[in-house]
């Protein structure tokens, strides 16, 4: 967590408008799954730069370091084996926070300022404001936020906001030996991606394409897939969006609830003014029956 107040575009659970007045281009990571060699240099660089405690690797029958990211491990190369009429495929995809344009984690978060989005597209968790409720884990369509059992707060890729803020590229990109990872403005990277997709299509991958799902407002991760028609085989959701439960709760249900609660209070007040209390038979209470002397002094 680091960053500049002038570049805050969205702040979780905040009634005040975010103070970001600076206009910067949206930045992104470029991930070309077709040139990734699965060396895991990005995993190491992420651990090293962020100075994260080492995680024990778990053998799951592939070259994958462990089954899933953890609170201490934010960058995971996912290996998947896939067979179709075209033969046997071996996919490697660098998995981490997608830095959504419309982040479901931020929308679901009830703690003011625990999740922020910068003008440059980086979505960052501020652990000192996080209350560890886990709502972001319900709001994220990519299964990214991970709760630390030690600190009871949530962690994920920061897109190296601390490096980016001083003009450096993220650690994972710095470490990549093949150039399958690149960093730049999203517009630049989409151009590079389009060029690469063209090459792939010429090379016979007719379904090659860019993964930049519109359902979450696009992502600050531009992924090139040889089989963009089937992102699921890479472990990516086909049409990710903020879960309906979260968007329904945060808009219509919340308004309905607010109206019902305020209506309940106002309604009972009006009822009392109109009908007043029910008195038991023979009950003597109220100003009319009260002897005059009790009102004096």
């Amino acid at each position, binding site marked *: 967590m680091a960053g500049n107040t002038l570049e805050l575009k969205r702040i979780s*659970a*905040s*009634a005040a408008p975010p103070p970001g007045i600076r206009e910067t281009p949206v930045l992104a990571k470029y991930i070309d799954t077709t040139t990734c060699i699965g060396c895991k240099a990005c995993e190491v660089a992420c651990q090293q730069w962020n100075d994260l405690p080492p995680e024990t690797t778990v053998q799951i029958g592939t070259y994958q370091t462990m089954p*899933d990211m953890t609170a201490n491990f934010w960058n995971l190369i996912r290996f998947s084996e896939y067979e179709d009429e075209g033969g046997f495929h071996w996919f490697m995809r660098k998995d981490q926070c997608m830095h959504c344009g419309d982040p479901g984690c931020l929308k*679901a978060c*009830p*703690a*003011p300022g625990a999740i922020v989005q910068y003008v440059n597209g980086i979505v960052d968790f501020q652990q000192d*404001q996080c*209350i*560890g*409720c*886990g*709502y972001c*884990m*319900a709001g994220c369509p990519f*299964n990214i936020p*991970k*709760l630390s059992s030690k600190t*009871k707060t949530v962690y994920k890729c920061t897109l190296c906001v601390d490096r980016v803020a001083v003009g450096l590229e993220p650690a994972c990109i710095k470490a990549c030996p093949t150039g399958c990872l690149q960093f730049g403005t999203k517009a630049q990277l989409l151009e590079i991606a389009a060029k690469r997709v063209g090459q792939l299509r010429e090379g016979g991958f007719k379904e090659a394409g860019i993964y930049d799902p519109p359902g979450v407002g696009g992502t600050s991760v531009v992924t090139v897939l040889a089989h963009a028609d089937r992102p699921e085989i890479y472990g990516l959701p086909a049409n990710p969006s903020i*879960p*309906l*439960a*979260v968007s*329904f*709760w945060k808009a219509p*249900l*919340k308004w*309905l*609830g*607010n109206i*019902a*609660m305020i209506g*309940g*209070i106002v309604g*009972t007040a009006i*009822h*009392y003014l109109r*009908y*007043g*209390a*029910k*008195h*038991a*038979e*023979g*009950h003597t*209470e109220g100003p009319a029956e009260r002897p005059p002397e009790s009102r004096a002094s």
Partner: protein
Amino acid sequence: MILRYTLKERIVHWVAGFVYVYLLLTGLAFYTPKLYWLAVALGGGTTSREWHPWAGLVFVAATVFMYRMWAADMRITDADREWSRAIGRYVRNEDAHLPPVGRYNAGQKYFFWLMFLGGALLLISGVAMWFTASIPWSLRWLRHAAVLVHVSAGLATIGGFIIHVYMGTAVVRGGFTSIVRGEVSEEWARTHHRMWKR
């Protein structure tokens, strides 16, 4: 005077009542950023987040006690259905034109069942939210459903709670005293619960 609520009944009621108010305030803090100050006032967001589920378990325990004490009295009868149809008269304080009621009127019974069922839903969804991180990604619909069920059931109980507090303190005079000191006057019992002590 007539004993309406035993000491045990009163203790259980007030445990549930105070814990519910705590759950309500912290829950509202997480419901909307405009009320997050409630969590701050109650010891901070992290403390509120930490205690809310434990308080929920206390509420559930109290609800189980209330179920065991009162479920038999809370059975909805034909007389209750008749009373419900004429609820407009009750709202307008024209009680004399209503069918006589026993220990609880239909409104109280429906409130009891609302809190009981709401409590059950809040418990199930709350446990799922407590351990969201342990719900596997393949069952993520559970994470989503839990969020939605918890807020919906919470709002439903708030509706009941507003009416319960209003009726018990402002409208039915003597009701509040009865759940504090346990006793009501004979006139009170005859007026509000004619069939109760017969």
